[in-house]
């Protein structure tokens, strides 16, 4: 009824190529932003921030990053965990080496460093594709974790081999360290998430995104119409690495506070983010959010229902949780291989016509 494009005339090409061409979508987006920035910080407590919001926001950035590489440019990567570790260790080294600089810039810089590392490990993509590339990036995963474990310089020669985030403030409010208020950590991450999503959307609707998708859909044709495959692939690795690095930095500095590399950024993390991208929908920014939400919220929801609602023992619930999440992923991929984003698109198509059948 309200979800209509009729009557919403576009009089310029700028209007036509905007992110939300339909008025209702636009308003919904503004409402979500207002709620996220102005309402949520006042109502959340420590549990909600640490169990739900922080992991969701941070994984959403990682999923956006990986989606650019896998979903838009078609280059499979299993090195996400390793690249997140690069972001984490980069921000740690920056925080401890230049304590007077704002952590805001440290995190952005950590993204930049990760982008560089990601490009380096993206070089094989110029020669190999598909599964073989996946294996090459898997090497990055293991090498990077090994590197951060073995070279003491990265963890400032601490006895435990761990890194832990010192307290840093933004506008006088601590965002890392033990004193951090839940709302501060939430808002800090939210700023990065919103900026990442907008940047990713802008890149993917413009020429950069077209080049990436051209490479994904048919690399030979892309080259013959003038796409430089070297530049297109490496720029995808760079942009992807930047976002993954951001998320790794936030994951360590704001969310966990202290990190042991093999545990926090192991191969599991690579798969988790890849699943988010696949379940959310390849080649969709919304899908990255949906996938992150699905895999972060589902375990929390199951735990609360099984333990809190039905009163089952915690260990039984924990094992069941694995089985149910795993089963759901399989069911889900069979029912809708194009992910949550596709379900969303279909729903919107239907809604445009509702209440009429055609």
């Amino acid at each position, binding site marked *: 009824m309200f979800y209509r494009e009729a009557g919403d005339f576009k009089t*310029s*090409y*700028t209007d*036509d*190529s905007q992110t939300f061409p339909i008025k209702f979508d636009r308003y919904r987006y503004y409402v979500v932003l207002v709620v996220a920035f102005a309402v949520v910080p006042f109502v959340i407590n420590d549990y909600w921030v640490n169990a739900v919001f922080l992991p969701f926001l941070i994984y959403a950035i990682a999923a956006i990053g990986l989606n650019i590489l896998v979903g838009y440019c078609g280059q499979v990567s299993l090195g996400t965990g390793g690249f997140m570790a690069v972001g984490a260790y980069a921000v740690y080294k920056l925080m401890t080496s230049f304590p007077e600089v704002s952590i805001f810039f440290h995190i952005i810089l950590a993204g930049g460093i990760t982008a560089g590392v990601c490009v380096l490990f993206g070089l094989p993509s110029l020669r190999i594709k598909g599964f073989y590339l996946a294996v090459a990036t898997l090497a990055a995963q293991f090498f990077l974790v090994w590197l951060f474990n073995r070279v003491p310089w990265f963890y400032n020669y601490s006895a435990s081999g761990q890194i832990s985030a010192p307290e840093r403030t933004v506008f006088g409010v601590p965002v890392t360290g033990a004193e951090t208020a839940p709302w501060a950590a939430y808002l800090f991450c939210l700023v990065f998430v919103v900026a990442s999503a907008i*940047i990713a959307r*802008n*890149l993917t609707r*413009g*020429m*950069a995104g*077209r*080049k990436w*998708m*051209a490479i*994904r*859909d*048919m690399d*030979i*044709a*892309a*080259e*013959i*119409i*003038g*796409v*430089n*495959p070297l530049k297109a692939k490496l*720029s995808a690795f760079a*942009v992807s690495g930047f976002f993954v690095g951001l998320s790794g930095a936030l994951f360590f500095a704001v969310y966990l506070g202290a990190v042991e590399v093999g545990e926090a950024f192991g191969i599991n993390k690579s798969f988790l983010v890849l699943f988010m991208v696949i379940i959310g929908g390849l*080649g969709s920014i919304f899908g990255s959010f949906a996938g992150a939400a699905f895999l972060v919220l589902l375990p929390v929801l199951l735990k609360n229902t099984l333990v809190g609602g039905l009163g089952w023992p915690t260990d039984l619930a924990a094992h069941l949780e694995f089985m149910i999440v795993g089963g759901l992923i399989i069911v889900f991929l069979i029912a809708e291989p194009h992910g949550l984003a596709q379900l969303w698109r279909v729903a919107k198509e239907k809604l445009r016509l509702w209440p009429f059948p055609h």
Partner: protein
Amino acid sequence: MNDMTPDGYTTEDGRKIGAVVMEMRNITLRFGGVVAIQDISFDIREGEIRAIIGPNGAGKSSMLNVISGFYHPQEGEVWYKGAKRPTMKPYEVAQQGIARTFQNIALFEGMTVLDNVMTGRIRQMNAGLLSQAIWKGKAEREEVENREVVEKIIDFLEIQHIRKTPVGRLPYGLKKRVELARALAAEPSILLLDEPMAGMNVEEKEDMSRFILDVNDEFGTTIALIEHDMGVVMDLSDRVVVMDYGKKIGDGSPDEVRQNQAVIDAYLGVAHD
């Protein structure tokens, strides 16, 4: 075609054809022991429609691939706009203004028609990644300016109604048209068409022929095309190169080629009385 001069000639229907844009000199291309193209020379002149014909396996597509930089000939030289072309990657050739379509459609199936055609504007759009990331300044300006050009081409090829449709959902005939649109969007100096009518019914062939003639007429685009449909080739083209088993066996106006005994033997079969 009798008044052939270095500066060009006038076609039967009175169009002025200009000087040589591209010249192939003694091209030989081998794949291992197989000789795909053997010592072939011909030129393409500004504004003309040049056809390359020949039986299956004659080396026509290989020739097109040499022009678009996908194959590198072992011997011979490609001269483009008065200079010898060094060995180039395909995307560098495209940047020089040579666009092409493919025998088996090579569109980007996951993208909309509009995005596919916009990709053709790659030569004209070079805003930096940062500008694109914030969608301000050069990137935004380029996007609008090039969209206007692309919309003209979309109008011209009559595909307005499908501009937001993903290419994967389109029928064959329309895909061919979208591919032509993408090649045209590059505003190429030379447009290479690899079997633009393959697999089409008569009506679609008529449409496509009209589009090719209109493109040549309205934009003055130089066109080199490969086609099997003899009627189409003879009607459309100004000059024809005939290949057989990798060798050139004829070159000239459609009428000249039609009367060439070697061509008749090799390609058109038995001579008609």
